[in-house]
C-alpha cells in the first residue's frame, strides 16, 4: 500500500527567497509524524503546500498515491486530508455546536443542500454532540465560538479538524500558548481523536513531540536534516547541533 503522504523534491519560493529547498518525505498510513525545527525553518509553509493553501514551485506531493498538483484546498480536503491552523481558525460568530457540525457537513454528504433542515438531522446532530463531549466542551455548546477562552478555541479547532473523519490529519502547533495542564489535556485529546489515523504535527513543545510521535522529521532552513524514530533523533549529532543543542543551551 502506498504512503499516506509522499513528498518528492518539493521546493517553494517567495520571490527570490527559497523557503523550502527540495524536501523528500514519506509518511505511511497510521503513523504519527512530528515535524520540528527552529523558527523560520518552513514547517508551516510545508503544511500550507500539503494542504493546497500555497502552490508548489517544483516537485510533487501525493496523498494516497494521488498527486495534488493544481487542486484547491477544498478538493484536497475531500481526498481525506484535514488540517488545523497555527493561528486559531474557527467560525467565531457560530456556536460551538455549529462549528463542529460545519466540520461534519461535507463528510456526511450534505454538500450544498438547501432542502435538508439541520434541526431534523438526528444522526448528524448526535454525532456532533458526541464529539463536543469528547472535546469536553459540552457546557459551552451554545456559546459563540468567538467568546471561548483561548484553550477552548484550540480544542474546538482540533474538533473541527477531525470532525469529518479525514484519514490524514495535519495539526499546526495545537498546544501553542497553552498552560502545562492544558497541554497535557490537549495531547491526550489529540491522541484519542486521531487513533488509527495518519497524523502530521508541527510542534515546539518537545515533551509533546517525544510523547506523541512515532517518527520525527527535523526541518532546518527548508531542508530535512533527519527523519527517524524519537530515540535516534535524540541522539543524532546533526540535530543536536542544529536544533536541540541551541534550544537546550
Amino acid at each position, binding site marked *: 500500500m502506498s504512503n499516506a503522504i509522499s513528498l518528492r523534491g518539493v521546493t517553494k519560493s517567495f520571490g527570490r527567497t527559497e523557503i523550502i529547498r527540495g524536501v523528500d518525505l514519506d509518511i505511511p498510513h497510521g503513523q504519527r509524524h512530528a515535524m520540528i525545527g527552529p523558527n523560520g525553518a518552513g514547517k508551516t509553509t510545508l503544511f500550507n503546500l500539503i494542504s493546497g493553501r500555497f502552490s508548489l514551485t517544483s516537485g510533487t506531493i501525493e496523498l494516497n498515491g494521488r498527486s495534488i498538483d493544481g487542486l*484547491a484546498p477544498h478538493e484536497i480536503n475531500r481526498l481525506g486530508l484535514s488540517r488545523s491552523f497555527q493561528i486559531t481558525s474557527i467560525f467565531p460568530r457560530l456556536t460551538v455546536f*455549529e462549528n463542529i457540525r*460545519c466540520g461534519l457537513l461535507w463528510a456526511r454528504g450534505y454538500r450544498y443542500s438547501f432542502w435538508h*433542515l439541520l434541526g431534523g438531522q438526528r444522526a448528524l*446532530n448526535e454525532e456532533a454532540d458526541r464529539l463536543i463531549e469528547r472535546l469536553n466542551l459540552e457546557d459551552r*455548546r451554545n456559546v459563540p465560538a468567538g467568546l471561548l477562552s483561548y484553550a477552548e478555541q484550540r480544542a474546538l479547532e482540533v474538533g473541527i479538524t477531525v470532525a469529518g473523519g479525514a484519514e490524514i490529519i495535519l495539526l499546526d502547533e495545537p498546544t501553542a500558548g497553552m498552560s502545562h495542564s*492544558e497541554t497535557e489535556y490537549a495531547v491526550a485529546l489529540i491522541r484519542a481523536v486521531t487513533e488509527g489515523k495518519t497524523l502530521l504535527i508541527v510542534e515546539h513543545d518537545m515533551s509533546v513531540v517525544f510523547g506523541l510521535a512515532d517518527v520525527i522529521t527535523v526541518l532546518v532552513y527548508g531542508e530535512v536534516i533527519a527523519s527517524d524514530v524519537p530515540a535516534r533523533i535524540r541522539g543524532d549529532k546533526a540535530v543536536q547541533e542544529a536544533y536541540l543543542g541551541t534550544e537546550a543551551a
Partner: protein
Amino acid sequence: MSADATQRAPQGRTLSAAPGSAGLARRAWPWLVAIVAALLLPWLFFDWSTHRHSGFALTMLSEIGLMAIFALSFNMQMGQAGLLSFGHAILFGLGGYCAAHTMNAVKAGAMWLPVELVPLVGGLGGLLFGVLFGYVATKQRATAFAMITMGLGELVAACALMFMGFFGGEGGISTDRVIGISLFGVSYSSSWQVYCLVVAWTAIAVLLMRLQTQTPLGRMANATRDNFERAQFVGYDPRMVRFCQFALSGFFAGIGGGLYAIVYEIVTFDTVAAAKSATALLAAYIGGAGGFFGPFLGTIVVVLLQSGVSLLSNAWLLYVGVLFIVMVMYAPGGLVGIIAQHAPIARAGRLRELIVPYVRILLPGAFSVFGFVLLVELASFTTIGAAQGKAFKIGPQAVDPATAFPWLLGAAALIGGGLWLRLEARGFRARWDALMADAKAKGVML
C-alpha cells in the same frame, strides 16, 4: 478543555428543542399572529362611511410586504454570507419585468397561468439572473464583490433605458393584473384582494428564507462569511457557497419583484436602478443585518419614512441616510441589535430601572430631532417646495420661511437639544454600565 470554571456561563439552553407537535406549535404561533395582524391592520384605516379600504394604507402595507422580501433576500447575501451587494435591485427588477411580461402574455391568451403564481414566475426570473450574475460576481468577495455588483447594477440599469423590447425604455412595461385566471376565483380588481395575495406571498417567502438559514447551505454561508479559509478546509468551495446563496437570494428578490408588478401594474427602470438597491441596503442595515428579522424591521421604518414623510417633503432619503450613518457609527447591530443589548438586563430583571434614564435622554433627543427636521424641511421648502406654491406649516401654524424666526428656532432646538443630550448621555451610560455589570455578576450575559 479549560478548567477555568468561573468563566463559564450556566448550562446553555438547548437550541434544537425536541422536534414534536408541541415544539412546532410553539414555533408556529408567532407566524400566525403576524399574519393575522397583517390582515387586521388595514381595517384600522377602513372608512366605514363609504365602506372602502384606504388605498393609501393598503398600498403602503403592500409596499412593506414586498420590500421586506426584497430586503430579506438582500440580507441572505449581506447578513448571512457577508456579501455586500450594490446591485441587488437588478434581481428584484428583472423578476418584476419577467412577471409583467408573463401577465401580458396570459392576458393576450398566449399562455395559461393563475395570478397567484405570477410571483413565482418573478422568482424564477430572479433565479435565472441570479445564476447568471452570481456566476460573475461570486468569483470575488468583500470589496471586489461590492464593486462588481455595482458595475452589474449600473449595466442593467443602462440597458433598461437602452433596450425597448424587454424593458420598455423610460415608460417601462405596463401590465394588467386582472387576467381572469385565478386558483381561488378572485379577480384582484380591488387593492384589498391584492393585499391578501401580498400577505400570503410575503409569509411564504419569509418562512422559506427563514428555513433556508437552517439548511447546510445557509449554515455554510455563515461559515464562509466568518472564515472562508476554514470553510475550505472542511471541504466546501467558498465560491460555490457564495454562488448558491446568491442565486437563491435572486429567487426571493424575484418574488418581491413579481409582487411589485402585480401591485403597481407597471415595472419601470426604477426597479433595477441603484437607488432601489440602496433602499435594500439601508433597510437591512438600519433594522440590523445580524439577525434574521432585522431587515423586516428596517423595511417598516424606511417605508414609513418614505410614504409618511415624503408627502410633506422630498427629504425622506436624507432622514434615512442620517439614520443609516448613525447606525453605522453607533449601533452596527441595527435596531435589532439595540433591542438585543437589553436582553441581559431584562434577564437580570432590572429593565424597569432604565425607564427614567430613557425618558431623560429621549426628551433632549426629541428636541434635537425636531430642530433637525425643521431645518431640513425649511431648506427643502425654500429650494424645492416653494415653487410648488405650498405654504409652510409647523403643526397648524403657518410660518413664513423667509423670516429668520423658524430658522433660529430650528437651530436652537438642534444645538440646545444636542448639548443637553450630551449632558444626559453621561448619566445614562453610567446607569447602563452599572446594570450590565450587575447582569454579568448574575451570570445572565449569554
